[in-house]
């Protein structure tokens, strides 16, 4: 093992550095606040990575389709954006999901709807976890809550995108993207030659060399039977992802009567809520989904079954989105409440605690 590499970095820049270390072969993006540091950092580092394509596209529509091409050709590819730009990519993500092209997306969320505000938000949860574009598809969604996790999730997103031939999304927000923290950087990925990549991805469109049959990447299934078969195949894959890739963190859940659920930036504040609440004698715990899709439904079900659990409280920087998924699992067994702020206004631990007290 080589020596640990520790740095003090901005979330967006740490994510970009992690992508380079994770063996990214292509980045295609378009500027938007609060994530422009990602492409700025990558273009600065470009001279050291001559084999990596880093290209500023004419729009997010172009970026996502460049990803389709470059990922389809066998690369490890990424794009990043913030809410309005990520909206523009949805058609392309639907195509990518159907053609099963591994690709990594980053949405450093800002407040919406519309052009909204450049302040942090968690308003794009529905879009991220329910598909976002047209048709029945899913994207693997990570919700980092620290600069360290911006790095760790980026590496994981590349690996899982390849493993499942699926788009993977880092759903973060302007605060995590802009904040600076200490971070341990991963080791550099082993360089892969074109031949290595050809072996690893026999489905890629890189020329039907050596007498192999032609490869085709398409999302067109014009015959009804073919379209339905494709949907069944995709659903079977999504089922396996749900079985194998759920990630969450439990904080004081064992004897908790009040279950707070929060992800990303909100979860940091909610940890403090748990600490303060516990000091005041409240039996409060936190369930932090790390993957938003697949969702930790089994864990929530387990909690909903427990006699001592009195209520769930979803804390989000939105008017209430993830609480709907919690309600689906809890299915009326316990009350599920929501508290949120929007527009970039971030709740304090005291705010949240008061909201919880009002509910018990």
């Amino acid at each position, binding site marked *: 093992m080589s020596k640990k590499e520790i740095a003090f970095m901005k979330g967006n820049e740490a994510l970009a550095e992690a992508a380079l270390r994770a063996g990214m072969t292509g980045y295609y993006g378009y500027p938007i606040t609060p994530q422009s540091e990602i492409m700025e950092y990558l273009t600065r580092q470009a001279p050291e990575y001559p084999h990596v394509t880093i290209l500023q596209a004419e729009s997010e529509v172009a970026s996502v389709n460049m990803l389709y*091409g470059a990922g389809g050709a066998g690369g490890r590819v990424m794009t990043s954006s913030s809410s309005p730009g990520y909206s523009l990519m949805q058609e392309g993500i639907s195509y990518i999901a159907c*053609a099963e092209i591994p690709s990594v997306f980053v949405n450093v969320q800002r407040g919406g709807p519309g052009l909204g505000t450049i302040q942090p938000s968690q308003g794009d949860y529905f879009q991220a976890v329910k598909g976002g574009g047209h048709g029945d598809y899913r994207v693997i969604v990570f919700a980092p809550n620290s600069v360290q996790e911006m790095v760790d999730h980026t590496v994981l997103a590349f690996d899982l995108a390849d493993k499942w031939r699926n788009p993977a999304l880092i759903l973060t927000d302007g605060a995590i993207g802009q904040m600076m923290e200490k971070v341990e950087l991963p080791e550099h990925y082993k360089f892969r030659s074109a031949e290595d990549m050809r072996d690893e991805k026999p489905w890629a469109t890189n020329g039907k060399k050596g007498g192999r049959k032609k*490869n*085709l990447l398409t999302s067109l299934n014009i015959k009804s039977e073919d379209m339905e078969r494709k949907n069944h195949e995709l659903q079977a894959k999504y089922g396996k992802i749900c079985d194998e890739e759920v990630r969450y963190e439990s904080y004081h859940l064992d004897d908790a009567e009040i279950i707070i659920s929060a992800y990303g930036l909100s979860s940091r504040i909610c940890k403090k809520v748990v600490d303060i609440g516990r000091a005041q004698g409240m039996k409060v715990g936190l369930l932090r989904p790390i993957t938003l899709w697949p969702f930790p439904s089994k864990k929530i079900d387990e909690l909903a079954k427990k006699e001592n659990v009195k209520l769930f409280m979803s804390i989000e920087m939105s008017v209430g989105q993830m609480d709907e998924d919690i309600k689906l699992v809890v299915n009326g067994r316990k009350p599920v409440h929501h508290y949120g702020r929007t527009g970039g206004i971030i709740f304090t631990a005291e705010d949240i605690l008061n909201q919880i007290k009002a509910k018990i």
Partner: protein
Amino acid sequence: MKDGYELVYKRPDTLLSKRMHYCPGCFHSTMHKIIMEVVDEMGIAEETIGVSPVGCSVFAYDYMDIDFQQAAHGRACAVATGIKRSLPDKFVFTYQGDGDLAAIGTAETIHSCNRGENFTIFFINNAIYGMTGGQMAPTTLEGQKTSTSPYGRDVKHVGHPLRMAEMVSQLPGVAYCERLVLNTPANVRKAKKSIKKAFDIQKQGLGMTFLEVVSNCPSGWKCSPVQSLDFVGENMLKYYPLGVKKDVTANSN
């Protein structure tokens, strides 16, 4: 030589022996054939990746026996950019209709030309949306009737038809740009030479190669294949003049 006959003409190996879905008389099939002839003659079938559009030629991959990606409507040039940037030593081409390239995909077209991406665009201009049943295209001629310009294209209302070859030839990133037609055997032979030239220039990495084909659409134009050839000759070629619009190799040759 078979049974005393000498084989003088055959289907190119990379054009699969399948019944095409194109309407009788449609130039899409001719264009498919000559692109694959050139690919075979250059021996690059294992090195070539095609990108098909949304339009009648979405199924180009059903006929061409090479690696293919099918793009979203208008995005073929972005997809090809991603492929070519990843695999700079391969031959990459897009095959796009006028709705795909000159309406919904105008930005991707202009910007990939402007970046001088080293791939080849085959632009099939039939002045109509063939696949969706004959609606007006950005290239529909003034006065031409379509299902969404039932009284003829009114340029005051919807603007003038776009001359894409002339437009993109203005961009420094474009190395070679020519407008072709496939209405006579002589013109088909000429077009083949231009395709070969485009691939040669692509190999040299000189920039974008753009071939516009003035095409037909007997079904969308609501006429017979023969009448469609007359319309091409009498109307289309007047507004869309043939010829090389740009060739950066012209002086060195």
